[in-house]
């Protein structure tokens, strides 16, 4: 029911370095936006700045078009689900859910109706009289979501809500949050996580934040986009490394020749590979990093045309998928083997000599400054 606009937001504690640096962002009404990043990147701080729990050092925050920098949290039309749920331990589930409604001066009968509706949606009707300590982790999570939902907020904030759940429950709750947002999601949602699977599956939009020197140089935001956009067109090495599991294979290389249709680079052992990226701004001889995702590497017999030779070091059978780790003597960074994603029933054996074809259209090239070159094959 309300869009959220961040204009050059900064966060700095007294005398300290920037925690959040120059974040500008537009979260449309009803959009599900995920803040993701490594620990210490300031994603939770940014969320808390939106909630009003942290002061904004610089920049303007608008909710529904209205600047809210100086408004109290309760005046911002936001509701939040906390990492540890933050349920009041001395109050029953229904009292927990109705706490905010009572404070807002709502009348008893209406409160009961609203609590009843929410309890039905979340399937916690039978728990209403219990105290939080008598609930399981998943149930507490639902109550915490219910407490946020019942206020019918304009903006819905989640702070790593699934991090305290076990793996199975996490998947289930993730699906439910997605379903809830689809069915009842008139509110814009900001969701903070460090888990890229949650980010990829839940978000309409992903905001990847980075930290340290990258932040100082480029601001807090590494890349904003749809999940697939971040996956297919990582803007820089950081995004390429962070999104995707297993990590994108990265090989150091040197530019050999430039053509409008692509860039040819030589790996360390001299193998020449052509990548379908725009040569703009590159010079022959420049040091670059070649990137390729595990599912795009193809095992082959021939030894020519973007093909690397190698030996299989280790094989992991996951059932539906098999990961083969190929000795990177032919030019991978020395400490990392290349990961190849194969079908589950692949009969590869440790010690086999194999050829790996690097498809031109699926290769990424990152310049010396870490920024990606535009991929020619990528959809706009």
């Amino acid at each position: 029911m309300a869009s959220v606009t961040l204009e050059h937001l900064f966060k700095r504690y007294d005398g300290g370095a920037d925690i959040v640096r120059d974040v500008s962002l537009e979260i449309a009404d009803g959009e599900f936006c995920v803040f993701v990043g490594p620990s210490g990147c300031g994603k939770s701080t940014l969320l808390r700045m939106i909630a009003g729990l942290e002061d904004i050092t610089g920049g303007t925050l608008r909710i529904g078009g209205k600047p809210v920098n100086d408004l109290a949290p309760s005046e911002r039309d936001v509701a939040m689900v906390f990492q540890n749920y933050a349920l009041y331990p001395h109050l029953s589930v229904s009292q927990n859910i109705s706490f905010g409604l009572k404070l807002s001066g709502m009348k008893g009968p209406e409160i009961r109706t609203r609590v009843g509706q929410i309890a039905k949606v979340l399937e916690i009707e039978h728990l209403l009289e219990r105290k939080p300590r008598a609930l399981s982790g998943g149930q507490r999570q639902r109550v915490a979501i219910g407490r946020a939902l019942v206020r019918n907020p304009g903006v819905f904030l989640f702070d790593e809500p699934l991090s305290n759940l076990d793996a199975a429950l996490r998947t289930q709750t993730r699906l439910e949050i997605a379903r809830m947002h689809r069915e009842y999601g008139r509110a814009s949602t900001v969701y903070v996580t460090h888990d890229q699977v949650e980010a990829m599956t839940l978000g309409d939009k992903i905001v990847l934040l980075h930290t340290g020197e990258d932040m100082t140089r480029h601001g807090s935001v590494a890349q904003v986009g749809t999940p697939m956009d971040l996956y297919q067109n990582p803007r820089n090495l950081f995004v390429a490394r962070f999104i995707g599991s297993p990590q994108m294979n990265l090989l150091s290389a040197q530019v050999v020749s430039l053509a409008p249709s692509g860039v040819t680079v030589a790996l360390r052992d001299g193998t020449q590979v052509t990548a379908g990226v725009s040569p703009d701004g590159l010079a022959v001889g420049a040091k670059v990093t070649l990137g390729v995702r595990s599912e795009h590497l193809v095992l082959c017999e021939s030894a020519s045309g973007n093909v690397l030779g190698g030996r299989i070091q280790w094989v992991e059978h996951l059932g539906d998928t098999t990961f083969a780790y190929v000795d990177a003597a032919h030019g991978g960074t020395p400490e990392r083997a290349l990961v190849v994603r194969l079908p589950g029933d692949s009969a590869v054996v440790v010690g086999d000599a194999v050829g790996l074809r690097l498809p031109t259209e699926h290769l990424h090239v990152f310049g010396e400054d870490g920024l990606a070159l535009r991929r020619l094959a990528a959809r706009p």
Partner: protein
Amino acid sequence: MTALSMRKVEVPSPRFSRLHAVVVLLGVLALLAALAIVVLLLAAHQPAAAAGVLAVLGVAVFIYLSPRFYAWRYVVPGVLAALVFIVVPMGYTVAISFTNYSSDHLLTFERATEVLLSRSNSDGAGLDFKLLEDANRYRLAFADEAGQHYLSASFAPGAAQRVKAETVADEPAGTALPLKRVIALQEALKQVTAELPDGTELHQSSLRRFAASRPAYTRNADGTLTDNADGVRIQANWAAGYWQRADGKTLQPGFRASVGWHNYVRIFTEQRFLEPFLRVFAWTVSFAALNTLFTFAIGVVLAVALNWDALRGRNFYRLMLFLPYAVPAFISIPVFRGLFNENLGEINLVLDQLFGIRPGWFSDATLARSMVLLVNAWLGYPYMMILSMGLIKAIPDELYEASALAGAGPLTNFFRITLPLIARPIAPLLIASFATNFNNLTLIALLTNGAPDYLDTAVPVGATDLLASYTYRIAFQDSGQNYALACAISSIVFLMVATLAIVNLKLFKVGREQR
């Protein structure tokens, strides 16, 4: 006893180290020390106590040497401490509460009887005496009012002896020993019985006189006494704790006697005890309750304020606010006594300057009680503050963040979140505070001593007296010095506080189960 706990000689050990030797040595020393106590008790004619110590010692040694009771070794010191410091004093107090022990009934029956039997009646004024020395032997020279002189046979000082005195015509020759020598010979003279020719027996009655005296009472074969003056029989009245003459008159001193529930009955039925007891009880309960309430209220509000992140110099405030707790009550209470002094105190000085009033802090009952509460709130709030600060710190910040998003202000936070969340863990401590203040003798004794006293009661008691100070006054300050009654009141107080303690333990247990 604790040293004994280290005796582990029977525990198999790979080598007998120096530590083992020290431990065994300490154990033997402790054993010898305990045996020395037994010997000392026997020397002090306390065979029952000696037997008790010996029995406890035996049990302790058995427990520490027997591998079967290994776990008990850790419990024994605690059990012994509880016995010595709680069970024995409490048992003694309860036992006394069933007697008539007081200043009128101070002695045991045997001692009181001895005192009566040693009394003697003197006939007449007696005779002046002089002591004449005769080669390390002495003679007594008597002279009566009529001018008649007597001279005793010579005697050597020392043993109890009778000496005959003969009538002599003139004052015997020789110089009388000076008073100094007579005083030096007191012990010997006391044992001398002089017999006049007419058979009258004389005993020394003062430094200058011998007088005829007879024991006032004689013991009869059936245990009764006879008054030698008039032949009346005297019987021990165990209900009253006095020797009583047949005509009903009682003789001092009284003796200790068991009176059953009499003291308790007195407290609850006799108007002159019941009425002040009820007043004191009501005030004690309100004092303890109000004081717990005030200290907790002040403490928790300050704790919340000190936990406020935006407050600068929190450590300084915390230190200053904690100071009242660091000053010993023995210093701060008399200081307050001076500050509240009605004529010279600084508080009345300021009040007089500002409003022209001089409240009678020690003479008006309500003001005195207010002052007591005020002073004790000042003394007690730091403890509550420190406790509350710890408990408040344990409440997750997220709860307040959630409530901030819901629009809760500081008051809502305090009453809907902070207070309910610290109520459960702090409840046992509040009950303990109530129980402590229930017996806060120090405060009353040092501040008001019960003042202002009620004028309409038979026992001395004041408006600010708590049960503890009331008991103290009955036991040690009342002219009656009624120990037994004081013990009975103490026992009642003990019962009430013990009940509180049990309730407290139950609450605490419930709290733990639910966590």
